[in-house]
């Protein structure tokens, strides 16, 4: 089941991105994405574990690039919110595909008597919860409008960097 879900997630993520890029008038980018999807699928057939993480990186580059292009044209004209939602959706599905591809590779090491279905069910539930929460947080972040000045952004940047450093330190101490 995991393998099927991997391909489904790749297809959905690529489909969303292609849709946005094609409708925005960037067909070349769409063709590049089709090529990337084929390479990713080929990598899965070849059992190249590194391919998924590389593709996740490339997909995120495309998604980030999409935010800088004016993609609200054609059928999506005047709907920047929908474009952003589609791009965030593509990002979430790319993350799911990357995680599930690695999980499928790990499941190949299971013995016939192992409870693979149980492991799959548990992993999918957790992953789904993380993906849904992440997607929801992104949506909230994009829809909530809070006006702040440049000074506030500098302060927030410092707080964020300090917070991340604290989290890393805490996790390192916890795992030691």
């Amino acid at each position: 089941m995991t393998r099927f879900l991997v391909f489904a997630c790749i297809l959905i993520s690529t489909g969303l991105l292609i849709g946005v890029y094609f409708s925005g008038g960037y067909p070349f980018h769409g063709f590049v994405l089709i090529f990337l999807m084929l390479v990713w699928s080929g990598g899965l057939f070849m059992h190249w574990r590194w391919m998924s993480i590389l593709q996740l990186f490339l997909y995120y580059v495309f998604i980030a690039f999409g935010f800088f292009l004016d993609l609200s044209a054609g059928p999506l004209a005047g709907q920047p919110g929908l474009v952003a939602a589609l791009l965030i959706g593509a990002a979430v599905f790319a993350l799911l595909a990357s995680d599930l591809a690695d999980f499928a590779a790990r499941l190949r090491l299971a013995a016939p008597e192992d409870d693979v279905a149980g492991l799959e069910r548990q992993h999918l539930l957790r992953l789904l919860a993380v993906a849904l929460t992440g997607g929801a947080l992104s949506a909230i972040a994009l829809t909530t409008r809070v006006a702040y000045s440049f000074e506030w952004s500098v302060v927030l940047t410092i707080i964020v960097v300090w917070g991340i450093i604290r989290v890393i330190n805490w996790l390192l101490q916890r795992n030691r």
Partner: protein
Amino acid sequence: MSRTFITAFLTYLLILAGLAVLSAPLLALALPLFLYLLVSLWRVPGEIHLQVERRLSTQRILIDDVVKVTLEVTNLGVSLEELLLEDLLPPGLEIVAGSPRRLVRLPSSRSVTWTYSLRGKRGSYALNRLCVTARDTLGLVAVRQLIDTGSQLFVVPPVLRLRRVAIQPRRTRVYSGSIPARQGGPGVEFFDVREYQSGDAPRWINWRVTARHPLALYSNQFEQERVADVGLILDGRRRSNEFGRNSIFEHSVLATAALSEALLNAGNRVGMLFYGRHIVWTYPGYGKLQGERILHDLSRLEPGDSEVFSELYVPRNLFPARSQLVLVSPLISEDYEALVALRTQGYHLLVVSPDPVSFELATMARTEDIMLAARIARLKRIVLFRRLLGVGIQAVDWDTFQPFEKVAKQYLERRLILPRGVRR
């Protein structure tokens, strides 16, 4: 580069880029990744506390026999969401049934037990490493640990049953056995006649001799049969055993195992010396236990080249003077001098030589040149054997395509009357 690093790098990149260009969508894009990373790192298993017990159905098997390995892993620490247990097998072992790996979820204080079957080539295998990989909830971060389980498996060569190996060293030990001791006393075979002594059984009286010498009675003496010291020497030199990718060494090991069994069964004190890359010395001993020791040592021997001894080398202090030596070696022409030197020391030598010519020929295309070369090699070997026989060394040429039992029955069961050769 690990998935954790790439994911963290991507998250950082998006956050920093979003803050640098003041782009809300980029920051929003980082959120799912950040959450994914956070959940993974949150549930990284800290230290793994596992207790592993390994059980082997037997610690010693013959080649082609199967051993069952049972592993029981108990989690003494925190619950592990995804645990990969991998029994690391040394090369040379083959899995017959089951799997040496398990992928499980192992809650605290619970255990998992599984069994798989192995067989292997001759050798001594350390089955002592279980690789444990525990992952976090989402499988992003792995904590790996090697657990020592301390087991060893010996795959020993098959022991062919030989009825008897006829040897007659000059020196025997005091215990009774089956080797003629060249001394009169209780026994079976006629040895000599001496004047009657009180205690001699009347049926031992030799009436013919007594009739010729009417002043006294004469009785028969029999040859005592005792046990002897036997030194088995196994040649593990690469130059005499290996021909390209093929090695005749396994045949030498087979013959050594069979000979040691037969000699020990006859009550002899048997030791074994192996020389190849290193010298391995199995101290002499009697009985089944010694047979096991020799088999264990045989299981871990591999041919190799010694940095010190390029020629046949037998440390004489290991074997008592005038004892019986049995050399198992494919032999090369240069060995002649070393064997004669041993003979001059008074050792009785028996050479069992797996035939390297026919062995190597079987792996080659039979062209005219190769057949001519094989003929020359065979003639050289015949000459070497005749020269050895000339100095009183019995050499048995074993065509490895013949069963060793058959060759042993033909050449080793009966005592060969050898020329005196070199006398001491």
